[in-house]
């Protein structure tokens, strides 16, 4: 794969946090990964494996200790300033004093997009997430799933070619979660954006991803990368034998050499 086609190129990245007492936590050790344009990559692993940290490094929310990360061939700082990525967190993080529409328009507003263009874009996105009727509602009037949909619409407001998502469905119930997964698949197919998706859930990672990156803690590192090539991602896939094979492959990769019966803590098998 040529360098220009890559959305994200991570090479030899280390991240060390210094604790207040002068200790060191080795959060990431020699991590290398390439995410192609339009590719959906999940990061999965037990708590403390550095999957969220890795995503934050790509987003330029924290600096790397050593190694390099390039986003569309640029430094992460430049990519952030150019708004090359959209981001969504586990908590929807909507501003309570803004309506749904104003929340979606927030990044556009900050970057000086004029009112009419903002309105057009938010209309599109509201239709995409099916919340046209809630445009003038405030976040406290929405359910958890609706809030998360608004947060995802907001992350797509500037049509980024890369989406960074840190457990965006982590706080949702199973039904809503599956529904949101279906919607995300549809959204990604429409926009063609590359996605780095952090999750605790094996089925979620398998269902959504082209590749699942399995990580393990102390120090955080990539232990396995599992390719999944499903022909289509719809409700039937969830019952498909290939899907279960994928789940089994990720699960055994997660367990690695460790005691398979207990499994790594912090990973959901549901």
């Amino acid at each position, binding site marked *: 794969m040529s360098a220009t086609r890559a959305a994200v190129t991570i090479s030899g990245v280390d991240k060390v946090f210094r604790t207040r007492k002068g200790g060191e936590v080795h959060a990431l050790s020699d991590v290398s990964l390439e995410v192609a344009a339009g590719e959906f990559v999940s990061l999965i692993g037990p708590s403390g494996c550095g999957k969220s940290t890795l995503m934050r490094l790509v987003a330029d929310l924290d600096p790397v200790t050593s190694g390099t990360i390039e986003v569309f061939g640029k430094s992460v700082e430049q990519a952030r300033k150019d708004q090359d990525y959209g*981001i969504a967190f586990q908590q929807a993080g909507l501003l309570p004093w803004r309506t749904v529409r104003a929340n979606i328009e927030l990044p556009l507003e900050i970057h000086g997009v004029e009112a009419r263009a903002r309105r057009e874009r938010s209309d599109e996105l509201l239709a995409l997430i099916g919340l046209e009727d809630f445009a003038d509602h405030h976040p406290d009037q929405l359910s958890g799933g609706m809030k998360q949909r608004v947060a995802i619409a907001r992350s797509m407001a500037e049509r980024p070619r890369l989406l960074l998502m840190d457990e965006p469905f982590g706080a949702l119930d199973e039904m809503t979660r599956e529904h949101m997964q279906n919607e995300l698949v549809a959204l990604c197919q429409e926009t063609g954006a590359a996605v780095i998706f952090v999750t605790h859930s094996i089925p979620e990672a398998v269902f959504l991803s082209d590749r699942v990156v399995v990580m393990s803690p102390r120090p955080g590192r990539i232990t396995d990368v599992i390719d999944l090539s499903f022909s289509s991602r719809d409700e039937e896939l969830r019952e498909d034998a290939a899907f279960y094979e994928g789940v089994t492959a990720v699960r055994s990769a997660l367990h690695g050499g460790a005691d398979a019966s207990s499994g790594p803590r912090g990973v959901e098998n549901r």
Partner: protein
Amino acid sequence: MRTARAQATLWSVVGVLGVAALWELYKAIAPDDGVTVGTVTVLPRTTDIAMPHIWDMVTRLFEPVTRAAGADVLWWAVLQAAAFSLGIAVLGWVLGVVSGMLLALLMQRWITAESAVLPWVVLSQTVPLIAIAPLVKRWGTAIHLGPFQWENWMSVAVIASYLAFFPVAVSALRGLKSPPQADTDLFHAYAAGWWTTLVRLRLPASVPYLMPALKLAAANAVVGTVVAEVSIGLGGGIGRMIIEFAATASGDPAKTWAPILGAVLIGLLSAGLVALLGRGLGRFRRGEVPA
């Protein structure tokens, strides 16, 4: 909705009448010399000098201030004094809110400023008003800028603001720091600068913290104005009037209570003004209401 408001109004009227009724009830049943334990008076005397009847206070309001010819009716004199003090209190409140906000911004922007300034902010409130009043007056009169002359009412406004800025500075700082890391991360991801983050995130987020502080600042500004009028020796306001009328307390006890009613009126009005302001900021007060 309407019935709820009507009920609230009804109950506040009942509250006021209740206090008046308690006053008269105590006056009726307690002995003239109050209740004493040993030599210590634990409940107040109930003579007409110590506790005039409510109706005496009210009728006194409609009599002239003094027996001198052409003297104003008492309620009118009190109202004028109240308006004068309210004007100074509002000015003191504005000064206090502005300086409190500026201090909070300074402390939010630079952590070192917080460690350097916050202890002084807290310490400033331990200095008694009576101690700083003459200082403010002396420093003020030392200012000479062309035709500008430092007036006594300016000293009073400065002292009122000295009491008003404190709750604003402390609460605004808390409010400005209230957005969770996810929100500040989001703004960082948008490559938003300090100013944009302040205007679009920190200031709106601080409103729920600020509202109680603004109310407190209003009450402080009123108290500060009344006390400073006395300490500075500024006539025309409620503060001096309380002192002047107290001098005639033995001969005309009901009159003493008139300027106190005036002070209560100022307090109510200023709280009402802040409540009005809060209504205008309603959309920033959704969801949680922190203490």
